[in-house]
């Protein structure tokens, strides 16, 4: 069994590399489910091209990636048709390794029999590997998120806060993960869902961590401003998540809502949708203070449903992380319904997108309806995870008794 575990991970990575270097149709690069305007590879290349030719890439509306990615890919790591698949497969491999490490830290074991399955569930999840094949930078965001969680589980506060600060530079909605990562740094990741207790670590220990995180964020913001030369990148990258200037369709709920919104109400509803994301942080962190990793997992689920510019990577990360919480499986109420809704939506999304935009036989409502179904599927998964995480505390019941809520 040891030899199997040793070979499984490299075999999976090799399989992914093979898939990435196969000649895939370019349609994958422009697919709207796999990359959003904030993560699209062709926009990244356009920004790097303009940057290298002396045009400010943030003076237009095409390039919305962080200046850190701009400087990274224009100086250290060039993006060519050969190096890009390697880089993205490497990002996914690091993310899978981080997930396996989180699992090991959670169970406290050095090697377990489930490591292979967890790595496979991450690397072979279509929601994860398809955006990675499309070279969407959401794979890099997933990697940074898992690295932040892994370092927090290990107790390496600086590394986890640095990863989170970098993730914040790439994607503003990940600010939701700040609270659980901070609290995870001061608690243990061991599973305590079944034994809920109030948090045993003093909250005062969070304050230096907050200061450290703010310091890292300020440093990276300053570095981004140095790369750019001015502050115009803030409005184009972070501001895009708040003002939604680009209404390209994606599997989320925001784009069609704000396409059909009248100008008079736009600012109000943009504010409502953004604040709505923030509402979930405190209740979930308080309710699951005994198991902050689970709170982080649930907030990743919230992001998957309600993020402004999601791709398939975000629900992909949420679904893959189910694999590190096997204790809740018996308590999930409707896993098959969720799986079937996901299957339904994942088949309909590309079909209706193509019918609307490429064949012209459908209209925007078809794709919008499939995003609603997808949202329902993700919401059902989130609700089931919350229920199971709470239900596990009650434990096994005798015959003839059931748990309800009043």
């Amino acid at each position: 069994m040891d030899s199997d575990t040793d070979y499984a991970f490299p075999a999976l990575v090799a399989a992914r590399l093979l898939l990435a270097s196969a000649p895939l149709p370019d349609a994958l690069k422009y697919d709207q489910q796999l990359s959003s305007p904030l993560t699209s590879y062709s926009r990244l290349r356009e920004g790097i091209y303009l940057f290298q030719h002396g045009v400010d890439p943030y003076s237009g509306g095409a390039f919305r990636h962080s200046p850190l990615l701009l400087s990274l890919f224009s100086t250290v790591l060039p993006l060519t048709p050969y190096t890009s698949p390697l880089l993205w497969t490497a990002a996914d491999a690091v993310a899978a390794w981080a997930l396996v490490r989180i699992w090991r830290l959670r169970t406290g074991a050095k090697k377990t029999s489930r490591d292979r399955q967890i790595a496979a569930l991450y690397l072979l999840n279509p929601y994860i590997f398809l955006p990675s094949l499309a070279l969407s930078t959401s794979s890099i965001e997933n990697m940074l998120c898992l690295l932040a969680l892994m370092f927090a589980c290990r107790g390496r506060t600086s590394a986890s806060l640095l990863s989170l600060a970098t993730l914040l530079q790439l994607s503003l909605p990940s600010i939701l993960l700040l609270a659980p990562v901070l609290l995870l740094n001061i608690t243990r990741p061991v599973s305590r869902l079944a034994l809920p207790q109030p948090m045993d670590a003093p909250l005062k220990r969070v304050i230096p961590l907050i200061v450290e995180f703010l310091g890292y964020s300020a440093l990276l913001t300053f570095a981004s401003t140095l790369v750019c030369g001015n502050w115009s990148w803030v409005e184009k990258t972070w501001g895009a998540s708040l003002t939604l200037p680009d209404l390209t369709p994606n599997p989320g709920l925001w784009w069609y809502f704000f396409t059909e919104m009248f100008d008079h109400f736009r600012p109000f509803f943009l504010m409502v949708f953004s604040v709505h994301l923030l509402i979930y942080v405190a209740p979930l962190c308080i309710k699951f203070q005994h198991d902050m990793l689970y709170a982080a997992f649930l907030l990743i689920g919230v992001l998957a449903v309600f993020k402004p510019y999601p791709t398939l990577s975000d629900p992909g990360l949420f679904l893959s992380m189910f694999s590190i919480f096997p204790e809740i499986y018996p308590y999930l109420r409707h896993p098959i319904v969720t799986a079937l809704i996901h299957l339904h939506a994942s088949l309909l999304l590309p079909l209706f997108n193509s019918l609307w935009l490429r064949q012209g036989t459908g209209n925007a409502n078809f794709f919008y309806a499939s995003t609603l179904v997808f949202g329902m599927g993700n919401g059902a998964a989130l609700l089931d995870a919350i229920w199971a995480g709470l239900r596990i505390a009650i434990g096994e019941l005798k015959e003839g008794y059931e748990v309800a809520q009043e």
Partner: protein
Amino acid sequence: MRWRGCWRAGFLLALHLVAASAQGEVFEEDLTLRPLRDGKLEARFSFATVLKGATPRDPGALTIDDEAQHYTLFPLALGQILREHAVTELHLTLNAGKWNYDHWGYPEEPGVGTGAELWVWMADTSPSSVDERWQGLRHSLAGLFCASLGHLDDQRTTSPVLTFQPEGSLPNFTHPHQLRHATLPSEHVCTENLTPFLKLLPCKSLSGIASLLNPHRLFDADWHGLGVHVRYREGAGVEVRLAFQAVFDPVRYSHNMRRDWSLRSVFDRTIERACPVARSSKVRIELPSETSYAITPGPTDVVNNVATFAIDSGKEALDISMQWPEEGSFEYQDTSKAPPLTDISVRRNLEGTSQAEARLTLELTNNLPVQVSAGYLETMPWHLQFYLHTLRAYIGGAPRDDLVNIISYSPPVPHSRPALLQAVLTLPPHATLHLTMDVSKPFLRYTEHPPDAQRGWDLPPAVVVPFAFGDLPNSNGTAAGEPPSGSPQTQQRAFAQGRRPRRMYTPVMLVDLATPDFSMPYNVIIMSCTLIALIFGSVFNLLTRRFVVVEVDARPEKQTAADDAR
């Protein structure tokens, strides 16, 4: 009594003329007719008024009252607009149709882009900036010409200085001049625009060459466009030139498919009287190269293949006609065998069947045996997002990216600014250069779609300016003396000499963007909000309600409350 009336009118007229010449206003009108090789007839009306000794208004002096301007022949409405906004040079064209460069050659007036095109050179100043005056100017001109020029707002305005150089001179004000250029390809031209245009002429359409401007015939032409050009010529003054260009098809009007034409047959009018305030009033016909034609009446003089008719007052009505008596019905040339009449031919297309992305292709053919350098300008509104890193150039399938040199690019800003691409393309002799670039189509808000949303958006024409013909001469090539005739150098010099940079406009394109369902704003809002509220409510239900263990046997009095999930 009638004699006395005539004498009085003549006396007033003489006073007018004296006053006008004392003021320094000169009015000249000109009609150029050119038969084209496919049986069509190009007509160009030009009405020029020069205000001698005048200079454009200094925008720095906009806060103080302007000195009184007295115009006799110079159009008052236009003059007031020019001084109100301190405009130095202005060019406005309103065109309809597609100018066929290959078969009609270069137009007399270079601005043949379809729709409305307005470009001005204005000096910058601190109290009111160029952009404020640009907006005021657009609205004033929209009111004057009954055209929707107010739509030429920030979403269509750029500053392509390399292509639209000033045609006059720019006076030396404290701040430098700036260019503002905007096009509206979907603007239509009709009688509503011609009527105020004619009102700007001294003689209106009552006498002189302007009496030929019959809207029924003009707007029936294959191509027609009117233009207003204002420029400042140092030493001469401010010149306003009103132009009308049209391409008629006499073969279509005639009963028996003949290309004979006359002023009566083309315009349904003749020139009855000369305009009394015009210093010169001429009709010029460019004579075709074959000799089997006949012109009546006899021209005043013929110089260099151009027959000139001077319009004098007092003679009978002038009706010029040109016939081809030996020709039966006109035979059209085989267009595939007819050589193009311009130095380069341009074709621009948008390829692709998806409403999310497309490919812009440009095909330039060099018809000369020497190398040609051409400037390429694209002012594309944000309805097409360029991906400049995908710009590729091919000649015959082989990649030649070295032939494209991008001078400047400013990317488009959604909902705000158009893209501006200025490049120099080098075309080898007798070669066809293919440019392709990936573009993506944006998704507009509900309120941004026009009323007929499924029609699509008109995209403005690209402007190509061939400016250099032949290679630059080598420094160590020719020693003393002229190179032998017939050598490549003399050939290139010959090509470079006769040609000046002239703008060529591609046809406009139509892009269809994906539309949302316009009947559904309320439904979308409620359905999305329902889903969000459903999930929100369920999450908070689960988080805030107490868990209770309930017995499901038939013993309802036994209920125990377990500890919470805390």
